Each structure stands twice: as C-alpha cells, then as structure tokens.
C-alpha cells in the first residue's frame, strides 16, 4: 500500500489487522493440530486461503517499516510453512505448483508487456553494456569466490581442482539469474516509472535468454571436468537453439492470438489467463520450451506489435495482488528454514559476494555506457533478487550431477532464501531514493465506494 493509503490507517486499524492475523493463525493452528490427517489436496484449499489472507495482512502490518509487500508475503509463508508452524504442509506446497506456474506466467506476460520498444531503444547502450559486464564479470568473479571459499563448502572440500572449477562455474551461472517476479512485484506495489525502472525491467526480462545460453555454454565446458570420460560436445547448443527459437516462435504466435482476442473479443480475460497459465504451460513444458520466455515474448508482441498492450496490462493488474501473494507466500513456505540456519554463513558469504560483484559490474558498465549518475548509483539494486528461475536451474544441475547435486541444491536454496528476502527491500529502497516510486494503492483506491 502506498504512503497515502498507509497514512490513512490509524493505530486502531493496525491493531484490528494484527488481531485478525493472530486469530487466523490461531484458527489454522487449532484446526490443523486437531485434525491433521487430511489428504487428496483438501488441505491445500485452506492453505491457499490462509496464505492469501496472512500475506495480505502481514504486508499491511509491515508497511510502517517501509518494507515491500513481497517481504510480507514471504514472511507469512515462512512462518506458516512446513519448516516453522506447519500450517501449510509439504504436500500443500507441492500441490500449489500449478498455481505458482499460473502466477509466474502472468508475471512474465506483464513483464513482456512492460518492455516497450522505444524504452528499449533508449536504453540499448546501457542494457548492452550491463548485460556484457554483469554476465562476464559476474561469472568470473563469483566463480573465483566459490573456489576461494572451498574450505567452507562441505560438498566441494574434497573435490579435485578441475572438478572444483567446474562446480564453481555452475555456481557462477546461478549468480547470473535474476527474479522477474520480484521486480514486477515491487513495481506493481510502487507503480514506479523512470530510468531506473526501465533499465531494471529491460535487464531482468532479457536476462532469462542470456542465462539459458550461458548455462548451455558452461554445461558443455564443465562436463569433461566433472565426469571422467566425458568429452566436449556441442550437443547442448542444439537443445538450447531448439528451446530458444521454439519459445520465441510459440511466444510470438501466442502474442498474436492474444492481440486478436483482445481486439475482437476482449472479455473474460481472467479465464483466458487461467487457461494459459494452467493448460498452456503444461503443453509448452511438454514440448520442452521455456514457458517463461514464451510468455515474455507474448507480452512483448502484444505491447509492441499492436495497440492492445495497455489493455493487457490493465487486465493483468485486474487480478489484483492475488497473483503476487500466492506466488511469494508459497515461495516463503518453500523456504527451508532449518537448512538456512545450517548454511547461513556460507550462503551469506556468497550472497554478499554476488551483491558486491553486481554493484561493481553496474558501476563499470554504467561508466562504459555513460549512464546518468542515478543509474550508476542504483542500477544494481533491482538485480539482486533471485527466486524460482534460480531454484529451477539449481534443481536441474543437481539432477544432472548427482555426485555433488544435493549439497549444491541445498546451498542454492539457502542462498536464494537470502536473496529473496533482501533483494526486494533493496530494490524498493533504490526506487524510493531515485524518486521513481509513486505508491499504487492510492490509485487503486476508489473513494466513491464508501457506503
């Protein structure tokens, strides 16, 4: 909620919200403890409802501290999740995967629609330099940090040097991933606009493509280092080519279909989104395309090849905060708190290293592209969040290399947990310092509705 909306809320309202939150926790706690044995997805229903309400209330209660809504959603999920109070159990978190897919597809669609060609053209120089420097320097320096931190990383301690470099390179790729959902979530709340917003959206949305390519390159290079007997093979590039070109083609087609629908029908858009998010994502995944990229491209096509872009964005905004609450509260519930407690020193080291490397790269690329001071100072802040994409890549690496996979996956989980918690806060602070945050809730408030 915006400062305006926030200012309207008195202490009584806050106390009422806190009481309601406590009552909801107590109600859920009592019922889940009294009747624990629920199967077949029934437990998930109350879990989603609870996360929606608890997330909304927590973010509202955290507002006076200037924290982003996402942090409230995450915290609600962490506290209610299977690792703390277990009001939302493991099964519910797993059952929510399709709903998360739906949320992420909407976020990607909105992200693509935020990429306006004039804005990209205007920022082309900055984005090009930033992409080059962030990815090359980021990969090199984070890899080096990982190698240097070898004694602290249990699963890497006994690896031979070649294998260690291979694992470190894979860790370096993880460091290049960003979180479009976190960026879109903070922007949805702050309704920010300006150079920093444009740069961050442009960079984060296009980084998905870059990461897919870099991952394929690194996988090709490190396989001989990690698997004795494996030879250098460019086969991975064929798969990446198929994935990228296929995703762009499907995304373009989907975008054109959406344009036609928006132009000639334009109704029941939420149902259309649900169909896309629940059904189409499954089909796209079955075809081995990157559905995040598909939806990004579709949003981009609608925005830039038609006049329906604003209509699309308006329709997605119409889903309110439901999408973000579900996505981030579930992400919070997913956060493995005991693991984070165990691995936090190493995870913190890598998080700080990644943050420093990102900030350094932003300075350098800003200088090279002659960015305005604002971008040089704050350009890095929106690039720290990590979430689903990072975890997805970490999981696929863990599957690919079972010898160190479990440890790698666990460390990635812990590291992403920190980035998930700290990243959105930094980005919101940066937007506020840059003077680009406006506060959206005031705009969404309808004063004429009273009574």
């Amino acid at each position, binding site marked *: 909620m915006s400062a305006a*909306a926030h200012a309207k809320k008195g202490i009584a309202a806050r106390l009422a919200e806190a009481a309601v939150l406590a009552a909801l926790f107590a109600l859920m706690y009592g019922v889940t403890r009294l009747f624990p044995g629920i199967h077949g997805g029934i437990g998930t229903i109350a879990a989603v409802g609870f996360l929606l309400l608890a997330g909304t209330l927590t973010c509202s209660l955290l507002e006076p501290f200037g924290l982003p809504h996402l942090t409230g959603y995450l915290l609600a999920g962490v506290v209610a999740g299977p690792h703390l109070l277990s009001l939302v159990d493991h099964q519910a978190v797993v059952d929510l995967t399709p709903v998360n897919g739906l949320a992420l597809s909407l976020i990607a669609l909105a992200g693509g629609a935020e990429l306006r060609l004039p804005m990209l053209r205007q920022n082309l120089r900055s984005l090009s330099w930033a992409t080059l420097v962030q990815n090359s320097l980021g990969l090199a320096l984070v890899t080096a940090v990982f190698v240097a931190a070898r004694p602290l990383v249990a699963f890497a301690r006994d690896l031979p040097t070649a294998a260690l470099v291979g694992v470190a390179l894979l860790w370096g790729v993880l460091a290049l991933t960003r979180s479009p959902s976190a960026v879109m979530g903070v922007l949805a709340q702050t309704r920010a606009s300006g150079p920093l917003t444009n740069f961050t959206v442009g960079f984060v949305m296009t980084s998905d493509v870059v990461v897919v390519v870099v991952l394929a390159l690194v996988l090709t290079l490190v396989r001989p280092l990690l698997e004795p007997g494996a030879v250098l093979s460019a086969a991975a590039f064929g798969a990446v080519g198929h994935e990228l070109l296929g995703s762009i083609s499907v995304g373009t087609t989907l975008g054109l279909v959406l344009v036609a629908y928006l132009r000639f029908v334009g109704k029941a858009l939420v149902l259309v989104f649900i169909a896309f998010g629940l059904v189409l994502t499954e089909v796209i995944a079955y075809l081995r395309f990157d559905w995040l990229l598909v939806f990004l491209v579709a949003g981009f096509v609608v925005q830039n090849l038609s006049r329906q872009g604003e209509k699309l964005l308006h329709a997605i905004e119409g889903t309110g905060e439901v999408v973000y609450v579900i996505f981030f509260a579930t992400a919070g519930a997913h956060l493995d708190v005991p693991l984070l407690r165990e691995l936090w020193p190493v995870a913190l080291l890598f998080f700080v290293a990644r943050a420093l490397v990102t900030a350094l790269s932003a300075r350098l690329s800003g200088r090279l592209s002659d960015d305005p001071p604002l971008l040089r100072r704050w350009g890095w802040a929106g690039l720290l969040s990590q979430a689903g994409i990072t975890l997805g890549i970490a999981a696929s690496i863990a599957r690919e290399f079972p010898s160190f996979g479990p440890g790698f996956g666990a460390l990635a989980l812990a590291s992403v947990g920190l980035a998930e918690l700290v990243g959105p806060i930094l980005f919101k602070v940066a937007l506020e310092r840059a003077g680009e945050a406006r506060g959206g809730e005031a705009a969404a408030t309808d004063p004429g509705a009273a009574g």
Partner: protein
Amino acid sequence: MSPLVVLTVLLVAAYLGTFLFGGRLIRGRGLASGAEFLVLGFLAGPEMLGLVGPELLAAFRPLTLVAIGWVALEVGLEYGFLGQRRIPLGHLALGILGGLATAALVAAALGGLLHWLDPAAGPFLRSREHLLLAAGAGIALAETTRHVVRWAVERHGAAGPLTGVLLGVTDADDLVPLVGAGLLFALFPAGPAPWVQGPGGWLGVTAVLGAVLGVVGAVLLGRDFRSNTLWGVLFGTSLMAVGMAARLDLAAVAVAFAMGLALALTSRHRARIREAAASIERPVLLPTLLIAGASIDLSSHPGLPLLAAAAIGARLTGKWLEGLALLAGSPATRRAGPLLGLGLASSGAVSVTVGLAFALRFPGPIGSTILALAAAAAVAGEFIGPAALRASLRRAGELPEPAPAEAEAAATRP
C-alpha cells in the same frame, strides 16, 4: 481423458458461462436449472461414454469443493435481497416454510420407501443410512431455483406483484438446503473435539466459522474500497471457509453461506462485493454442473428409479402445496390459479450443489443417491416448472400472451 483435457473442458465451460451470464447477444440462452450441463456431464461420465473416470473426478475433488463453496457464498451474499431491495419478511417466511415442507415431504416419502425396500434396516428412519439418505435428499430437493423467476423477468418481461412475491420466495428457500446440509453434516463430525458437544455444537462451529470469516473479510476490506484487495480477500476467506469445513468434515456449503451472510451484513461495500461475486457465478456454476453430472452413479442404489419417482412426486406435491399456501397467504397471487405451485418445480444450482456436497462428504451409496436424486429432480423440474410458471404469470396478467409466431417459438424452447 487426461486431467489437462478435463481442465480445458471445464475452463471452456466456465468461459461459456461468462458469456451466457454477461453477453447481451446471447443472454438467457440455456435452461434456468442448468440441466443441460448436468446431462452433458452425465454423458461424459463413467456411466455413459466414460470420457471422465472416477480417478479424474477424485483428482478434481478440491476444485469441486471450492466451486460449490463459491456458489453457496454467492447465495449468502445475496440472501434476503433482490438487488438493492430487501425481501419482505413475509416472503422470506413463506419461502423458508415452503422449502421446509417440501423437504419434510420428500424425506418422509423416501423414508417410507426405503423402509419398504429394506425392512431389515429397522423401524422407519431409525437406521443411520436411511435417515441420512432421506433427510439429505429432502433438503437437497427443497429449493426452487432463483433463476426460473429471474429469467421469466429478463427473458419474457414478467413484472408485477406476483412476480415480486415469487422472486422473494425462490430466493428465500435457498436457506433450507444450505442450513440443512450444515445440520446433517454436523450429525457426522470428523472426530471428537474437546470443546464441541454433539451435533448442536458442530452446527454452532459451522455457523461461527462462517460468521468469523465473513467478519474477517469485512475488516480486511476496510473503510475504503480497494479493487485490487477485493479478490484477494474474497478468495482468501472463501478458500479458508471451504478448506476448514472440509478438514472438520462440516458442510462447506453451509460455512460459505454463513460467511456470505456475515460479509454482506457487516461490510459497507456489500453492493460491490455482490457484484464481483455474481460476475463469476456462471463461470463457476457451469463446470460444477458438468462435474456433478459426471459424478452421477446410477448403480448407487438398487431402487434408484423408485426413489427418484417418489422424490420427484413428493417434491411436486410439496411445491403444489406451497403454491396453495401462497394463494391463501398473499393477495398478489390469487389470480395465478391453483397450479401456481407447479411453477416452482424447477430446481437447479443450489439443489445440485448440495447434492454434490453430500456425494463428496459421504462417498458411496448415500452420497451418490442424493446427488442422483437432486439431478433427476432438476431435469424433471425443467419439463414442468418454466412452462407452469409462465402460465401462472399469464393468468395473473403479469406476462403478456405471446403472439402466434412467438408462441410457436416458445413451444420449441423450454
């Protein structure tokens, strides 16, 4: 059929529902009871084409629960009101008493028949199964769908005092199946709880849970209306209501109904909330009816045809008597003639929803039989109700006589 295909079909049904409800061009297409979707679901289900199997229906159980909860929530939000206008207390009482009378008649008829079919089960309605089946079917068949009168107004331009009375009565009788389900489910709780005593206690928990979540919704929606908060709060509270009810083995429809009532009573944004909830009534309802149709099990009871005949006969009798009571109690209805009650024979969304709630809560012969009876009554009612209603309204002078061409078209249309 894979779950993905079924989901797609349900989404298409929901999509169609949006247009059937909101599109001017095709407004009013389809039947008031939604029986055509029920039949479509039945045709696709395990009993007929087998396109949807029992495993898939089980996989969609959570979604089905959410959908029936939403239907009940919407009824709760609108209960006691026609648009912005309150339904007069007299009409409310008539509707509730009429629903109760029909429920009692149906339950008695089924109880007697069950006793005759299976005398070994013990004295009349003493066995748990007989009581649950007879009473469950009674309450499921108690209502008259609100849409039958609304569509007479929207489609045929009916207007007048009788129409007003019927609109109120058909809205009011929804209370009987929804609260009745709460009561019957409370007889069979999930397990012992230290602080809940007997069925009355569980019925209290049903009401309090719904009321608390309704008030929570009202508090969260606050003083100033924020459209981006509305859906989160509505979904959050309704999902919690349905999920907790399912966890406690209480009637999700009763909890959601209580929640809707409490929310409408305590929130200053009730008009906006009703408008928002109503906007997705049909998109939720049509897939629900498809699932209900697919869930019908004709082998649920060996005497199902007899039970269906008895239930429908008792329901028609109950509605006819309700019509007579209306004639006696309300001057506005006098000109409608003695067959007015048959105009109330259409059941629909609420009836099938409650039937489906029983089928989900009591899987096996009892739940399946109640659902089958609710579906049979909805289909049978469609053959009698709308035509009888139009005839009564015409007799009362509240619906113009159709022109010959229109009459011919009307004859081909339900």
